[in-house]
C-alpha cells in the first residue's frame, strides 16, 4: 500500500505546474528576444524587485484577495460546475457590504462580522440566480453567470450614484459608498519585517477558509457527494446524490466565498466601495483555480505565483520593458498547465493499470521471446 505522501505522488502533483512554468518561461523568453530584450536580465530584475520586503507585503495582500476568488471558483469546478460569475458576485457583494458598513456604527467585532456576512449573503444570492436557472430551466451556468457579471456592472452603476448609495469623495470626481467607520476596519499585521506595509488582517480568514475548504471536500459526506458528482454525474445520481441540490449548494457556497473577495481591500485599506474598486478579480480566480488544480494548497501557491508576477512586473516599465509581458506569461502558464495536468492524469491511469497488471500477473510477460510459440 502506498502512502498518501509517497514520492511518486508528490512528484506527479508537482510535475504538471513545473512543466507549465518551464514552457511559459520558454515562450516568454522567445517573445522577449523577438522584441529585442534579454530574457535573463528581465527575469532577474523581476526576481530582485519581487523579493524586496515591500513587494512581499504587496504580494501577500494581493494573494489574499486572489485566494478567495480562486477558492470560490474551485468549489464549483470540483463538481464540473463553472461559476464564471465570481466577478459580478464579489463586486455587488463588496458594494452592498460597504454601503451597509458605512450606514451603521457598531462595536468593532460586530461591525466587521456584519459586513462580512452581508457580503457572503449577497454573493450567494447573486450566484443563486444562476443555480436556479440551471436547475429549473436547464440554462448552462457558463452563459448565465457571464450575463450576470454584465448585469451586476449595471446594477452597481445604478446603485452607486449620489442619489442612491454613493457620496462624492472630497476633492476628486470619484464617487463611492459612505466611508466605513473605524470600528469596521480590520487592522493589518506586520508580517514582513521592514516592509513599511502591513499585510491585510483578513489573511487569517483566507487561511481559515482554505482549511475549511479542504476539510469540507476531503473529509465530509457533502464533499464526497460533490466530488462524486464532478467525477461522474451518472454514477453520483445512481448513488443517491441529488444533482439539483448539489448544484444549488455548490453555487451558494461558491457565491458566499466570492462575497469575501472584496473584503481584504474594503476592510483593510479602502474602507469604501468607489468607482475605482478593482474589477476582474473573478477571472484571475479562474486562472488560479486551474493553476492550483482546485486544491487548497495548490491554489495558495498559484495565488502567490500570480501576485508575484504582477507585483514584480511593476518594475519593468522603469526598465523600458513593457510590463504586459507578464500577461503573456500568465496566459501561457494557464494553457500549458491544463494540458500538463491532463498528460499527468493519463500517465497516472496507465501507470496504475500497468502496476496492477504486473502485480496480478495478468499482463503478458513483456516483450515475448520469439521462441515461445
Amino acid at each position: 500500500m502506498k502512502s498518501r505522501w509517497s514520492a511518486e505522488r508528490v512528484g506527479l502533483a508537482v510535475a504538471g505546474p513545473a512543466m507549465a512554468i518551464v514552457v511559459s518561461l520558454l515562450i516568454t523568453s522567445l517573445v522577449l528576444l523577438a522584441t529585442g530584450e534579454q530574457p535573463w536580465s528581465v527575469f532577474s530584475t523581476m526576481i530582485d524587485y519581487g523579493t524586496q520586503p515591500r513587494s512581499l507585503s504587496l504580494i501577500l495582500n494581493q494573494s489574499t484577495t486572489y485566494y478567495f476568488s480562486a477558492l470560490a471558483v474551485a468549489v464549483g469546478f470540483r463538481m464540473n460546475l463553472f461559476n464564471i460569475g465570481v466577478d459580478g458576485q464579489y463586486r455587488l457583494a463588496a458594494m452592498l457590504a460597504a454601503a451597509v458598513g458605512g450606514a451603521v456604527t457598531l462595536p468593532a467585532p460586530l461591525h466587521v462580522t456584519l459586513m462580512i456576512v452581508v457580503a457572503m449573503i449577497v454573493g450567494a444570492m447573486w450566484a443563486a440566480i444562476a443555480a436556479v436557472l440551471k436547475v429549473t430551466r436547464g440554462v448552462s451556468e457558463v452563459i448565465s453567470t457571464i450575463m450576470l457579471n454584465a448585469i451586476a456592472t449595471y446594477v452597481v452603476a445604478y446603485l452607486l450614484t449620489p442619489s442612491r448609495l454613493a457620496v462624492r469623495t472630497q476633492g476628486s470626481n470619484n464617487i463611492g459608498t459612505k466611508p466605513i467607520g473605524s470600528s469596521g476596519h480590520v487592522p493589518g499585521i506586520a508580517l514582513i519585517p521592514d516592509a513599511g506595509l502591513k499585510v491585510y488582517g483578513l489573511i487569517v480568514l483566507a487561511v481559515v477558509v482554505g482549511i475549511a475548504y479542504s476539510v469540507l471536500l476531503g473529509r465530509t459526506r457533502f464533499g464526497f457527494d460533490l466530488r462524486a458528482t464532478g467525477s461522474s454525474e451518472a454514477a453520483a445520481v445512481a448513488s443517491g446524490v441529488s444533482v439539483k441540490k448539489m448544484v444549488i449548494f455548490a453555487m451558494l457556497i461558491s457565491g458566499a466565498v466570492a462575497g469575501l473577495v472584496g473584503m481584504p481591500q474594503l476592510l483593510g485599506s479602502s474602507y469604501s466601495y468607489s468607482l475605482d474598486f478593482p474589477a476582474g478579480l473573478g477571472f484571475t480566480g479562474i486562472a488560479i483555480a486551474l493553476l492550483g488544480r482546485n486544491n487548497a494548497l495548490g491554489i495558495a501557491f498559484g495565488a502567490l505565483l500570480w501576485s508575484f508576477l504582477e507585483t514584480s512586473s511593476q518594475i519593468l516599465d522603469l526598465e523600458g520593458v513593457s510590463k504586459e509581458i507578464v500577461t503573456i506569461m500568465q496566459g501561457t502558464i494557464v494553457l500549458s498547465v491544463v494540458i500538463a495536468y491532463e498528460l499527468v492524469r493519463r500517465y497516472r491511469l496507465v501507470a496504475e493499470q500497468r502496476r496492477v497488471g504486473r502485480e496480478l500477473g495478468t499482463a503478458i510477460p513483456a516483450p515475448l521471446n520469439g521462441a515461445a510459440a
Partner: protein
Amino acid sequence: MATPTSPPQPDAAPAVELRGITKRFPGVVANHDIDITVRRGSVHAIVGENGAGKSTLMKTLYGMHRPDEGTIAVDGTVLTLDGPGAAIAAGIGMVHQHFMLADNFTVLENVILGSEPTKGGGRIDFALARARILEISQRYGLGVDPDALVEDIGVGERQRVEILKVLFRGAKILILDEPTAVLVPQEVAELFDALRELTSEGLTVLFISHKLDEVLSVADEITVIRRGTTVATVDPRTTTARALAELMVGSELPVPELRESTVTDVAELVVDHVSLRSPDGRLLLDDISFTIHRGEIVGIAGVEGNGQAELVEAIMGMRAADGVVLLGSEDISAWPTRRRREAGIGYIPEDRHRHGLLLEAPLWENRILGHQTQAPNVKGPWVDRAGARADTERIVADYDVRTPGIDVLASALSGGNQQKLIVGREMSGEPKVLIAAHPTRGVDVGAQAAIWDHMRDARARGLAVLIISADLDEIIGMSDTIHVILRGRLVAEVDPRQVTPQQLGSAMTGAAGKDVA
C-alpha cells in the same frame, strides 16, 4: 498449434490469414501469437469467454489499432491496416457489438457516412444514396427505411442498418462482433439465414461469440481463443458444446440455476400500477404491477429498450413515475433515491462504468459510493476513512476481488473484478431488495459463477431480487418468476421451469400473444 480441419482450397488464397498477431495494452491480456485462417465463403466463428481478447483481435483486423507483432493477409496479400478506412478499402466490414449509429442522424446519413455518393463539389447525391440503400435493403430483405431517424427505430432494425452499412461499402468480409447479444432466438435464426445467404454469394463471415450452441449451429469452422491466444481450430460437426467449453475455459461452463424454492409469502417489494412518460409525452412504462417476495428472484425479460432501464430507474427513484412502490409495507413512492438505498435497496447498475463506479477514484472510495450516509463509511457528517477502508478489505477478501490493494484506482481492475466489487458493496449492510441489471454482462466465467453464487446465497437468506438480463439462459435459470416486458408493458408472466428460450423469445417480441404461460 492452429490446425485447419480442411486444407485451404488450392485455387484461392484464404480470405483472411492472421499470423502471429500480438497486441499489448498496459497491464491487461490482449492478444499474443494469434494464428487464424479463414476460408472464403465460410462462416468462421471465434469463441472465447468475456475478456479473452476476441474484440481486441477484431479491432486489429478492422484497422482500429495496429498489432505490435504479426501480419494480416487478405486474399493472400499482406496488408498494413492503418485505420478502418484501409480495412474498408480492403473489403472488410464490421458490425460492432455496440451499435455504431448516431441517434440524431437518419438511417441514410448513418449508412453513407464516409462513403458518400457525390455530384460534384463535394455535394452529396442524396437521391442516388437513397436508391442504392433501397436496392440493397430489398435484395437482402432488410426492410430498412432510409429516412427514419435512428433514435426512432428498434434494436432489430438497428442491427439491419449496421449490416446494410457494411454491404453499402461493398464489403466481401464481414466481421460480426457478438451480434446476437441483444436478439431473441427467432431473430437469431433470421440473422443466421441472412448469413448463409451472404456466404452463398461468396462473402466471408467472421462471427464472434461466447454462446456455444449458436456457434455450433452456424459456423463452418470454429477457432477458440483463451487468455489472448488461439488454442485450437475445430470442426463444428465433430465437436460438442462441452468440448468447446473445455477448450475455452478449461472446465465446464457455470450453469445458472436455482435449487429448492426459498420463496416466502412475505411481500418485500410491491410495484403497483407504475407508469412513466418521456418529456415529450410518450409512455415509457405503462401500468406496471408486480410483487417480489422475500427469498424470491423475479426476472424481467424483454428486448432491449422496451422499458427495462426506465423500470429500474423508477424503482430506484431516479426518475419520477406515477403509481405506488412499496418496500415491505412502507410506501416509498415519494422517496428520493438516497432514502430508498438507506432503507435497504441495493442496486447493481446496467453500465458499471457510467453508473456503478468512480473510475478515477480508489476502491475504498468506491466502497462509499451509493452508501454515503451509512455505516461504516461515515460518522455523522464526516467520512469515516478507517471504517470504509476496513470494510473494503472485507469485500475484497469475501468476494474475491483480484487487486493489489484498496488504494488502486477502479479503472485499473478488470471488468469481472469491478463487478465483484459492486456486488459486494451492494450486498453489504443486509439489504432487503437487490435490483440487479445485467449483473454478469461482460464478465469472465469465474466472476459470473461467483456472482450467481452470491445471488443464490442472498436469496436463501431472504433477499428479494429483481434481475434484468438480455441473456435468456441467465434469466430462465436464475428466476423464480419471469415477467415479460414489451413496449413498457408487462405482457406475460412465465414459469421459468416450464419455458424454453424460444417460447420466451416469442413472448418478448409479442409474437406469441398470451399462450406462453
